[in-house]
């Protein structure tokens, strides 16, 4: 299967704490993206990191990419109850238009 793996599968933290989730993938990629899915809704794009980048920031989000280990991490700082959602990484396979999604991490932020 081309599908990426994410860990942890589920994460429960207190408001104000940081949340870290990891993604591993298998093939050569053009870029890696992170998406959020609120319950019963479609996925929303959060951040994109290209294969020649190592780190990227956007507001409270920090993404790292290690192409030698085929892995990425998403850090959400100072989490809020509204961050409660499922988070997915997605890779775009080199030479294709195919976006492959990871297995997702369910984040619960307790108020």
């Amino acid at each position: 299967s081309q599908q990426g793996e994410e860990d942890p599968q589920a994460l429960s933290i207190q408001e104000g704490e940081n949340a870290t989730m990891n993604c591993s993938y298998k093939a050569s990629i053009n870029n890696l993206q992170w998406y959020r899915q609120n319950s019963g809704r479609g996925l929303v794009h959060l951040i994109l990191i290209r294969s020649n980048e190592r780190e990227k920031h956007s507001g409270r989000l920090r993404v790292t990419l290690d192409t030698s280990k085929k892995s990425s991490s998403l850090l959400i700082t100072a989490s809020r109850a509204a961050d409660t959602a499922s988070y997915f990484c997605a890779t775009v396979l080199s030479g294709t238009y195919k976006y492959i999604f990871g297995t997702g991490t369910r984040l619960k932020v307790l108020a």
Partner: protein
Amino acid sequence: DTAVSQTPKYLVTQMGNDKSIKCEQNLGHDTMYWYKQDSKKFLKIMFSYNNKELIINETVPNRFSPKSPDKAHLNLHINSLELGDSAVYFCASSQTGRLEKLFFGSGTQLSVL
């Protein structure tokens, strides 16, 4: 205005029936996708069209047939529905050549009884 809209949002039907899900995007994108999300939340790509041409066709039963009348629309027709087809189906679009973000519809929850 909703960027990517799918109809219907919910679809409940009997085994053996034929049903269609419609998708429209008003973003001017030229690539559209269908994804299936199962009960474990795994997202699997099914099809992709670029300017009405099929460019991705994963291992999907031939009971599933996508149709793209123009680059703003991508419909999914499913024949002889089976219990295992129950899932949430998402339409998405992107601008080809940029390999950047996908815009998703809100999903169609299909329940086959």
